[in-house]
């Protein structure tokens, strides 16, 4: 799994590539924690290139969403599809996660 960061105005987009599984999910938690330390307040998690997620990956998403929200900052997860969406549905986290269909929609939700 790889994480890439790009910036759109004051919003930071994290592009995840690969599998958000039990061996890699901690990297996302670490990255977002570091970004929060650097006073970043607006996050978009782009899941377009994630085809596999497990309970550790779901746990990492719960961690980043709850941590960012607790600090009254903003976060949206976008482009969730395929089996990743199915796992989120099975876990009944649709509604809990701030979700969008695209980066553009995420930017609109945040600004």
């Amino acid at each position, binding site marked *: 799994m790889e994480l890439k960061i790009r910036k759109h105005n004051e919003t930071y987009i994290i592009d995840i590539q690969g599998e958000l*599984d*039990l*061996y890699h*999910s*901690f990297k996302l*938690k670490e990255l977002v924690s570091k970004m929060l330390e650097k006073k970043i307040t607006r996050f978009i998690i782009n899941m377009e290139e994630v*085809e*596999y*997620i*497990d*309970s*550790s*990956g*779901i*746990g*990492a998403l*719960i961690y980043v969403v*709850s941590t960012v929200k607790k600090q009254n900052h903003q976060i949206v997860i976008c482009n969730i599809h*395929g*089996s990743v969406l*199915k*796992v989120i549905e*099975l*876990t*009944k*986290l649709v*509604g*809990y996660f701030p979700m969008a269909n695209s980066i553009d929609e995420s930017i609109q939700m945040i600004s």
Partner: protein
Amino acid sequence: MSDNKKRIQIDNDHPLFNKEGLFFKEFPSDFRQIRYFTLMVVQNAPPEIKEINLLEQQISEIIKNAVKHGNHNDTNKKVKIWYEFTESSAHIIVEDEGPGFQKLKEWNDFNEKRLSCYARHDFEELGNYVSYRTEDSDDHDGGNALFAAIEYWNEGVVFTQKANCIALKKTFPTRNRSIKIS
């Protein structure tokens, strides 16, 4: 679906524990190889029920629980897996050498509260029930694997009394339904 199936059951004599005709594999409890072991099992499944990789993901969670929480990643301890896949069903039994998942009742109660938040669309309160944790949990545990399992395995999630052995089954809708005349 009955409410009973939304709870983890405890029943040594449950029909899902019938191993007759099932395939069998045994693996050492090597945490690094959980996904590989899962692939070794799932490769037998017909593509109709793989649903991209959802079947693999759900089986991987059960094997992970056995390797990590059951056998504490002790490679001297084995995980035994019995399984059968058809075009319309997946049935798996996973046994570890650990002391068993002792918190089944607590888990069922926790899950009931979680489902009640969800039914009320109380996503604020749901935030308190997104992860089930015990003293055994660490930062890598999502604490949500069995929430998905109880939804996914629609024929039941059953533990033995000792709770170191779990049986799960899912039936899939068949694509070409034929009309049965009884």
